[in-house]
């Protein structure tokens, strides 16, 4: 059973397709993210679901029933806004009670529910505080509580962590996921930050220019991207342009612009000899011990970007590609210095080729 289904949703502003023929289903109780760069149409999609925009075409169903034509205040989807949109003229308790008041619940019920939801989000006793007295993370949780107290079928969250600072954002990622499993509500989460999407979601849709490029579990997107855009957008990766010199089954030989040749899995079955492609190799799949696979590149260590567990080696190859390498940098098994000659290698299956867009 799906809490939310979108079928061929399209939204045009004038001639511009902000959302273009998007379909997806969100199963009950799951955490679904939409990940895409700024301006790709994420917010527009969410606003259609919430009822603030009318789709140009397509259908939206909540718990199986179409909500096209239902005004926003009659839909059982609640929304956490990017800048939270907590009401500044009400205190915390009133903010949370607002929706209940709109439903004309009686006073004692409201008080009880507000109290209980504040406890569930771990902020008992803040009801009397002003919104401005809370920290960023606390406000975040109040915004969620304000929606959850209404027991919506679906909770929409539009980049809710965007305004928070680094450390808090890290913490809130985990916390949000916990809240979701606690409330056991369907979450539809929008973000342009891949780590948020990957960490929290059961399923992620990668969106680009109004369209969904791929929908799948985080691991699937990371390990089996279906397009160059997904490969480049989800997770860090090296990315070099090249041209296919030979195709052999699911693999191709690709001549890089710098002159080297690598073997890559075809991301796109339709690719033929001579096609311009981009090659994607993740830093953590590249090894300095030349044993791992058929792909080898020689180069000189350009610099070491020390960043604890995320340290990187920058290796400049003869063909002038700059290669980011993550593996073996931190385990002191291999001590390299700036200027050293090294040989890089990776397995063929870790190297993907996709057609260059356009």
């Amino acid at each position, binding site marked *: 059973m799906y809490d939310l289904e979108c079928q061929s949703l399209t939204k045009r502003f004038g001639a511009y397709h902000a959302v273009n023929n998007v379909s997806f289903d969100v199963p009950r109780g799951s955490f679904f993210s939409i990940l895409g760069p700024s301006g790709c149409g994420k917010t527009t999609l969410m606003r259609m679901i919430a009822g603030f925009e009318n789709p140009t075409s397509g259908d939206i169903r909540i718990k199986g029933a179409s909500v096209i034509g239902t005004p926003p205040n*009659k839909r059982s*989807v609640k929304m956490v806004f990017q800048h939270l949109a907590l009401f500044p*003229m009400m205190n915390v308790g009133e903010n949370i009670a607002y929706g209940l008041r709109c439903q004309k619940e009686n006073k004692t019920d409201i008080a009880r529910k507000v109290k209980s939801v504040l406890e569930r989000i771990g902020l008992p006793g803040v009801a009397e505080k002003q919104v401005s007295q809370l920290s960023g993370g606390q406000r975040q949780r109040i915004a969620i509580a304000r*929606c959850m107290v209404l027991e919506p079928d679906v909770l929409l969250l539009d980049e809710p962590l965007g305004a928070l600072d680094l450390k808090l954002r890290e913490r809130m990622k985990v916390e949000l996921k916990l809240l979701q499993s606690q409330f056991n509500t369907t979450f539809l989460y929008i973000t342009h930050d891949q780590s948020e999407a990957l960490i929290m979601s059961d399923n992620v849709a990668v969106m680009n220019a109004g369209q969904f490029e791929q929908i799948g579990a985080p691991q699937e997107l990371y390990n089996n991207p279906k397009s160059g855009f997904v490969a480049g957008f989800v997770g860090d990766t090296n990315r070099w342009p090249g041209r296919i010199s030979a195709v052999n089954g699911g693999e191709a030989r690709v001549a890089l612009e710098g002159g080297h040749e690598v073997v890559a899995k075809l991301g796109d079955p339709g690719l033929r000899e001579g096609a311009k492609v981009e090659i994607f190799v993740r830093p953590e799949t590249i090894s300095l011990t030349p044993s791992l696979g058929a792909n080898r590149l020689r180069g000189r260590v350009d610099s070491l970007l020390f960043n604890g567990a995320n340290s990187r080696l920058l290796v400049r190859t003869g063909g002038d590609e700059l290669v980011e390498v993550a593996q073996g940098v931190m385990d002191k098994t291999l001590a390299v210095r700036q200027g050293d000659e090294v040989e890089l290698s990776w397995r063929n299956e870790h190297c993907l080729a996709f057609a260059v867009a356009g």
Partner: protein
Amino acid sequence: MSRSDASKLTLFLLFTPFVLWMLLLIILPQIGVGYLSLREKVGPGDYTFGLGNYADFLGEPVYWNTLLRTAWMSVLVTILALFAGFPVAYYIAKVANQRSRAALFLMCLVPLWVSDLVRAFGWIVLLRETGLISGALQDLGVIRGPIELLYNDITVIIGLVYTVVLFMIVPLVSTLDGMDNSLLEAGYNLGGSRFTVFRKIVVPYAMPGIVAGSIIVFMLTAGSYLTPILLGGKNSMWFTEQIYEQFVTRYNWESGATFGVLLLVFTSFVVWLGLRLTGQSLASTVAKD
């Protein structure tokens, strides 16, 4: 010269004009008026001190009736200006698209810069017995003879609302402009009807603007002279006119000063009351440009 000395010197230099202005043009003159209001005339060129002028005010119903009338009509005008201006401000700030917004705001402002006198004069030309409206109504056959639309309270109120409504709209536009649409969206999303959203979100949000606009409008109305005089004609009766009369027709500066003090105290009281009731402060509303 050390840095803190320099900074003290510039502070002093910045303070001087402010202090001179406040002291010489605002505070001392007000004290002067207060002082004058306590001077009682005994005979030609002969004065003593006392509250006689205030007693005279209380003893003469014409005076305090005028003050009360001025006050309640000003309150009425303020309320009407709020009701007339709010939808307009809301339209400009929230409904109109970006381009027409500027144009509409400009259209609102143009009458603001034309003097009160011209505006009142415009109403006279429009409403007089031989004016456009009377003429138009006759042509349309609604009325048979010419009708006089001037010289009554309704006209005065219409004219006053006209002269002040823009001072209501400007602060309202600037507060409503600052209201993020996502607040409204959140209001609907959480199940609020249009009315609920308006009452619980829009109005409270606009409150500083409403209060600022109301204070300015109330003070302007209570202190206005031309519009009630010119449009009210024989029935004007406005407290500023009383002050003017005392100074000019009666050359009685003492009682004129008394009236001035009373007007200031009374209107300040009303404003203070308004601020108290809405929980706002002068600095946070009127000063917020």
